């Protein structure tokens, strides 16, 4: 038989035994390296289980510390034992105790036999590599790493930084080009022997023993030096998460693993009984001789990594509560806010709903409660229209609304009569399109039959609030798309103003025909009357001097 397995083990001995026996039963020799951290009694008990298995051997033990040379030393010991004890072995496959064969051994040996003399080892030149999670690419070789990364993290980081400042750089030995790659490889006897018996091995070992994570570079670099044919990929399916630790496979991954056509998977949860019993079943039918295709599994794990790193935009929950400035988009989907248009067009909301589709709400921040579309009391996600609930956390009220209705465009009205607290949040959001016709709210007030003094006071109040809102629009953090006109500017061409806005929000159709607009003919006179009454109309814009003579008005506070 031509294939031997070297197994690095420190835990989950029962699973290791299952896998080792599985391979040995197929005629493949196995050499097991047990971490020297495992107590002697436990080691002996484990070794003694294999008295009946001549193809399973043990090698000298090294105390393995993650990220250090000890892992390479353990591998060397195991490989030397394999090459010496089993002269018929043509390929050596390096695996761990938590690896699981996914395809019958015969398929793997057949695959290797079809590709004689090929070394399967992922090996990427350091200059090209964007390979590792930690980002220390070339520095893995040029700096010194006397401190263990896991146990002395701060010291490790500080010492690395210090060396960067001092410009420390170890010299590369002659004749090698540093390469990086997965720790799990399958090398030919020739390449492995060349590496292990090279005349300068002592010097190489000494140099690599001071590199960082040499188990991902020692064989990967030296195989380049000695091999004639390198296939730069690993036959072991192993995926890493954002912390650089391997993703773990569970029973529910079975369909994915079956379809991957990979030979060996790492790392498998020891409790995944379903995976072990499925894939180690000796009667498992041989699959087709397909090329390994880890693509689907890649996608699952890349998605998980993205979820951990970026999260779902616009979601605030118990696992995602970004600090200000770290939210990405503040809400889950684009939405539009119209200020003042409802005051100008009595039929605005139904018209907009027909024109834009999606859900068109009234004033979400109306003081008496959120005016949900259809004036519902409760919206998607059981979001309540209660003003107290909304105003308790007005920004999250909106974030919830947009999150709950994602997939359907939301549009709402806003004005100076509403609760203002959420507006800085809205304006910071790239998802928001805010269209403002400032001062438009004055039009229905003019038409109302309330006494002039009351109207005047109301206008003064609303104008003060709207002026503050308009100042926000010029703030440094505004990310929303803004369209703003004064009432006067808007009145000069309502359709021309609105058409691009509506096209930008949803669709290409123009704004024509607009719904009927309230007449503005009384506005110039009224504004003059306001001026005369001591209120300076600002947010409405410049309507010029009224054509007609101002009507004679009386009442207290009139300055003339």
């Amino acid at each position: 038989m031509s294939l031997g397995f070297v197994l690095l083990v420190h835990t989950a001995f029962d699973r290791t035994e299952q896998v080792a026996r599985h391979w040995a039963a197929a005629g493949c020799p196995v050499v097991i390296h047990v971490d020297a951290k495992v107590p002697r009694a436990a080691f002996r008990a484990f070794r003694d289980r294999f008295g009946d298995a001549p193809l399973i051997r043990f090698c000298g033990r090294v105390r393995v510390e993650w990220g250090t040379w000890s892992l390479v030393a353990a591998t060397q010991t195991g490989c030397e034992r394999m090459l010496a004890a089993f002269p018929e072995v043509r390929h050596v496959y390096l695996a761990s105790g938590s690896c699981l064969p996914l395809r019958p051994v015969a398929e793997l040996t057949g695959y290797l036999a079809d590709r004689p003399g090929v070394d399967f080892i992922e090996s990427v030149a350091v200059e090209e590599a964007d390979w590792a999670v930690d980002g220390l690419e070339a520095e893995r070789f040029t700096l010194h790493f006397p401190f263990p990364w896991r146990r002395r993290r701060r010291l490790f980081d500080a010492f690395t930084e210090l060396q960067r400042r001092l410009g420390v750089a170890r010299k590369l030995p002659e004749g090698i080009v540093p390469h990086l790659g997965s720790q799990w490889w399958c090398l030919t006897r020739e390449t492995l022997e060349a590496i292990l018996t090279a005349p300068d091995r002592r010097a190489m070992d000494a140099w690599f023993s001071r590199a960082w994570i040499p188990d991902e570079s020692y064989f990967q670099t030296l195989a380049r030096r000695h091999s004639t044919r390198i296939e730069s990929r690993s036959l072991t399916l192993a995926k890493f998460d954002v912390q650089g630790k391997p993703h773990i496979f569970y029973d529910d991954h079975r369909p994915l693993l079956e379809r991957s056509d990979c030979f060996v998977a790492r790392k498998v949860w020891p409790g995944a009984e379903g995976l072990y019993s499925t894939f180690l079943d000796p009667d498992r039918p041989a699959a087709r001789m397909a090329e390994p295709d880890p693509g689907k599994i890649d996608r699952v794990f890349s998605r998980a990594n993205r979820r951990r790193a970026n999260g779902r935009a616009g979601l605030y929950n118990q696992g995602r509560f970004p600090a200000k400035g770290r939210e990405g988009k503040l809400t889950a989907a684009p939405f539009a806010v119209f200020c003042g248009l409802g005051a100008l067009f009595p039929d605005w909301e139904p018209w907009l709903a027909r024109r834009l589709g999606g859900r068109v709400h009234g004033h979400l921040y109306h003081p008496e409660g959120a005016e949900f579309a259809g004036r519902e009391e409760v919206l998607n996600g059981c979001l309540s229209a209660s003003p107290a609930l909304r105003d308790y956390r007005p920004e999250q009220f909106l974030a919830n609304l947009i999150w709950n209705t994602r997939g359907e465009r939301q549009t709402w009205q806003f004005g100076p009569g509403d609760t203002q607290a959420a507006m800085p949040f809205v304006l910071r959001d790239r998802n928001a399109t805010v269209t403002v016709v400032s001062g438009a709210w004055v039009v229905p007030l003019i038409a109302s039959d309330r006494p002039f003094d009351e109207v005047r006071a109301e206008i003064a109040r609303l104008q003060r609030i709207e002026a503050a809102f308009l100042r926000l629009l010029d703030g440094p953090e505004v990310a929303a798309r803004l369209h703003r006109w004064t009432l006067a500017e808007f009145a000069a061409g309502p359709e021309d103003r609105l058409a691009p806005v509506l096209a930008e929000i949803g669709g290409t159709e123009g704004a024509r025909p607009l719904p009927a607009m309230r007449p503005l003919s009384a506005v110039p006179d009224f504004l003059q009357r306001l001026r005369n009454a001591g209120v300076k109309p600002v947010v409405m814009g410049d309507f010029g001097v009224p054509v007609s003579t101002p009507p004679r008005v009386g009442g207290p506070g009139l300055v003339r």
Partner: protein
Amino acid sequence: MGVVSSYRMRLRRKLWVARARARRSQLRAVADRTRAIRGGDLLAFTTLRNERLRLPYFLDYYRRLGIDHFLMVDNDSVDGTRDYLAAQPDVSLWTTEASYRASAYGVDWLNGLARSHGARHWCLTVDVDEFLVYPFCDSRPLRALTDWLDASQIRSFGAMLLDMYPKGPLAAQPYSEGQDPFEIAAWFDAGNYVMERNPGLGNLWIQGGVRARAFFADAPRKAPALNKTPLVRWAPGYAYVSSTHALLPRGLNRTFEEAGGEKASGVLLHAKFLDTFGARAEEEAARGEHYRAADEYRAYAEGLEGGRDLWCRWSERYINWRQLEILGLISKGNWA
């Protein structure tokens, strides 16, 4: 966080540990089987009173998830709870007649038990009406989660309380022993939760859900806290400080990501709103042994007057954890 604030937190933690030690003597062992606990066992900690009806399903649910041993404090039950639990082979039971309120609503008792038995174990602290749901819980036992948390060097796991309720008046669907309570209380509010970061302890303070919507719509600030950190790899000196809402040291409360990503999280499905609730609410309001008992239970009593329905047309019917994940209530984080 400054030195002074760190030191103050340390004192506060010591205080909670000391309280737990002092109140340990209030507990009298009824059935102490803690010698059966093996290294690495998953432990559950519970305080309860008169919950006989709920126990069979509760124990069954957590046995199936993989809890190896239950450590329970019976607060003076009179309904057979004590005898039932004392007969369970994987339950260690203590009893006390002392005040629930004075023991910080059971926190001192459970901190004391965790101090004695919890170190180096993953400890799940839940009430009998709280049922942990986490990503992949239908295919991976709790041990898969704790192994992954260990490998990721994570010490605590967040699980918000998700209040479940039936459709129709509570009294209309009586709960029977051994029944899955979520066959009745099958509904929840999916998207009306609000939160802020608690500056002192660093935990998230979450409110909302059906209780805010139905009972606290006019006084949202008073709505009950829903944030919980029920699953902790315990170490000597750890202490819950306010139900399971917050712990010390406060690093244990950082179960959420602040840089934009998502950390893995679950929920505690809360089977509070069953037909038993009405009688319970009256009794608890009279005893005054619960947190803000008067306020909260008066709100419930008023809110539920006349057989009011908590259900609304946007209520979501519970299916599984994947549904909760899509709705954004829980997250897989980078567990795949």
